């Protein structure tokens, strides 16, 4: 009976998370379009609903009802699999991301996370790596030259940044002594891990930009060079899943992980702890701030060339991440 309760509870929670993420991602598109619009001195979506608030729903309906074309000569199995491969792992990272402390409603303890694994961070990294296959499969299965170049570019970029990302995450782990994201947050109750980990945070910022394919690292779909990159041959919802997964869900989830690692997760801002704001709100404030930072970068900068990106990854980011480990090790020995 208890097992059944746990299963039902987790399934319900997973459902809420997935639906929430879907809706959230839909509205992240609205936020991005509004934000980009105002950066570019235009209003952004305006006509569907109040200030375009219903625009994401209209877009979703449009994408879902479009004709689903599959070009001749594609590898059908991989072609279909690719969009799912990009999307599903990105959303699966959510399983280990804690949004706040457990709290009680009507005597029922509710944990605002699906599961608290002791290898959570490694799992998140692993899922993150899998979602890259989506892009590579899409490029390969399309049987077309532009998608293939796009997919290969993405692979080249990711090999570099996965390494840097992994090493940059070592600092907080060393300080917290755990892979569990929940425990990492709890370890930051006195001070945030950004303090000795500033280099690691810089590396993670770059790595998130590269992993999610935002400018200056959006080489895989550089529209002026490769038409649309790896998703050139895709249509309808198969196409819609790519930007949804890459630009919104992955950016959001990776921002959440960065917040957990460096900015104390749901811990309140320093000196503002007395405010009656629940931890989950603090968490979202931080995640959104980081998310908006990525949007800001995306809509301002030009893009690097792919060889310059990999050069940056191996020659700058990896040494920085290693230096970060060294600094944190000293910090742990000296401060404790």
């Amino acid at each position: 009976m208890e097992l059944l309760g746990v299963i039902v509870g987790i399934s319900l929670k997973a459902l809420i998370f997935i639906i929430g993420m879907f809706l959230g991602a839909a509205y992240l598109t609205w936020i991005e379009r509004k934000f980009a619009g105002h950066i570019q001195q235009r209003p952004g979506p305006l006509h569907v609903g109040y200030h375009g608030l219903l625009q994401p729903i209209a877009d979703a309906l449009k994408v879902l009802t479009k004709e689903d074309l599959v070009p001749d000569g594609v590898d059908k199995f991989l072609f279909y699999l690719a969009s799912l491969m990009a999307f599903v792992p990105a959303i699966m990272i959510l399983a280990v991301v804690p949004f706040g402390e457990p709290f009680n409603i009507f005597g029922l303890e509710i944990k605002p996370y699906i599961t608290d694994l002791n290898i959570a961070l490694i799992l998140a990294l692993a899922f993150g790596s899998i979602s890259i296959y989506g892009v590579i499969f899409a490029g390969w299965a399309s049987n077309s030259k532009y998608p293939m170049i796009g997919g290969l570019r993405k692979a080249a970029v990711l090999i570099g940044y996965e390494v840097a990302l992994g090493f940059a995450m070592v600092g907080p782990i060393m300080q917290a002594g755990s892979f569990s994201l929940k425990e990492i947050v709890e370890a930051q109750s006195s001070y945030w891990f950004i303090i000795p980990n500033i280099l690691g945070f810089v590396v993670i910022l770059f790595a998130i930009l590269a992993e999610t394919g935002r400018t200056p690292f959006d080489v895989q779909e550089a529209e002026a060079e490769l038409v649309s990159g790896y998703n050139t041959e895709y249509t309808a919802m198969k196409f819609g899943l790519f930007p949804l997964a890459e630009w919104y869900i992955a950016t959001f989830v990776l921002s959440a992980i960065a917040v957990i690692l460096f900015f104390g997760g749901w811990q309140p801002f320093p000196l503002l702890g007395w405010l009656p704001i629940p931890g989950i709100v603090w968490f979202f404030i931080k995640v959104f701030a980081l998310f908006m930072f990525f949007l800001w970068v995306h809509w301002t900068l030009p893009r690097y060339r792919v060889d310059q990106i990999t050069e940056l990854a191996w020659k700058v980011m990896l040494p920085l991440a290693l230096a970060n480990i060294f600094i944190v090790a000293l910090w742990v020995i000296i401060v404790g």
Partner: protein
Amino acid sequence: MQNHLCWIDEEKLKEIKNKFPEISIEKFPNATFIYISKERLKDLLKSLKDEFGFKMFIDFTCVDYPESENRFLGVYFLINPKDKQRVGVKCWATNETLPTITDLWKGAKWAEREAYDMFGVRFEGHENLVRMFLWEGYPYYPLRKDFPREGYKTEYLPSLNERNKDYPAHNYDPNHTPLPTLEDLERTQKARIKKKAQMVLNWGPLHPGTHGTIWFIFDMEGEEIKQCDIILGQLHRGIEKLAEELTYTQFIPYTDRMDYISALCSQVAYVNTVEKLLKVEPPPKAKWIRTMMCELQRINSHLLWLGTYALDIGALTIFLYTFREREKLMDIIEGIAGIRLNSSYIRIGGVSKDLPEGALDVIRHFIKDFPEKLKEYETILTKNRVWIRRNVNIGVITEEDVYQYGLTGVVARASGVPYDIRALQPTDAYDKVDFEIPLGTVGDCYDRYLVRMEEMRQSLNIIKQCVEELEKLKDDKYLATENPYVLPTLEEVYLSIESMVKDFNLRIYGEQAPEEEIYLSGENPRGELGFYVVSKGDGKPYRIKIRSGAFYNLQIFTELIKGRTVADAVVLLGSLDPVVGETDR
């Protein structure tokens, strides 16, 4: 040494005559040609290049004289950048062949291909003499005089004919001029490039990075481009052929549609040529208006370039910022000329409309406003690390390349060659305004960017002077209607019978130009736009050859891209800034 670009002087001609006694010299008020036989052509050109300093290749074309014994006449234009002199060399193509000069000037490669495409003149020794604009297998040579303007209608196209029965109205011709089939296109592609590396990527003709319908073929090893060729002609409309059946005034709207981004500059360049030919002197007010409009158009064009260039490199936001300003310019141009893009505003002998009331105020406001916006673009881009990494040392063009390929405009100036027609051969009011010619040092994409940015400032400076001057000339005439070659205004046509007769005559019979040849050019935002007009004394030109800056500038792309990646291709193409309407004509 004179300041202005002019035609070759007596001294040099005498020296050439001493060296090549068989030449004959043909002199027109605005052009000087040296006739030479086919056998001695290469020697003459070589000595002109090496000994007389005519090292810059400007243009090559053919003229068809069906009655003549050797039907085709090849015409070469060269420039001596040191002494600022032009020379034309003419040579009869006996047996429809000419020796190639691609070993002297690499820039002649495409010009010779164009001549082959349009006239069927063969060039001995040309490395790959294939069609320039038309597809392989097209049986005719369109610029020959015996080719009808509407083409040979040989093909029955079911897609155009099997429609609703009501559709074809009277005089409907079921046959059409042939279109290239897929096999034709494949053959065209195969003729341009032989695959050597891993894969052949068709970049274009419809691709967001190509700024129009240019078809690039990249032979790539990974992402590195080993060899490249360009197929032009998707926008080829045969403007030069059309010109032969139009009067001089009727051709003005066609010049708009060549470089549609800087239509006013093209009009001014063309109208100046025709005015020199007809010896029409526009009133000073019209000259100042033209100069002002040209510079407005130049800023407009450079803004579009900046926006799309940044867009190519991934900076999406600059595009909308530049279009914000461009929109204001468009409104100004619309307010003055009546039309935003293809305005046909310039007329032989002046401009078509007077400045409307308040136009100068709006422009003055724009002048005040614009430097701030320019600074805004520069803040985002000039010192941006990503921008610098993408631009510096990409596509370095040396001074030698400029002369070899006949590069003009910003591309030449960024390489340190002070070649600016506005200063070299001032038309309109350019000799009365004060401006500087920004020069680059390295000749890479970053220099071209900086030069264009600085050019916008200089243009603004010129506009400021024009506005001040136009303020004084408020009540002057804007059209020299007293001249017999200038179309009268509408009011004059309605009010006086003489004007009506003149209007009728000019519209029906055209401007009866003297039997003369002329080559004159204007400084387009994309380079030197030259018009070589051959007049036989009719109301229509016998031949107009348009020397397009973009066409020659684009030619060096295939050289610069070798060993670079697709990502650099967009940067390079953007910085060369071709407009397909002008390259294809």
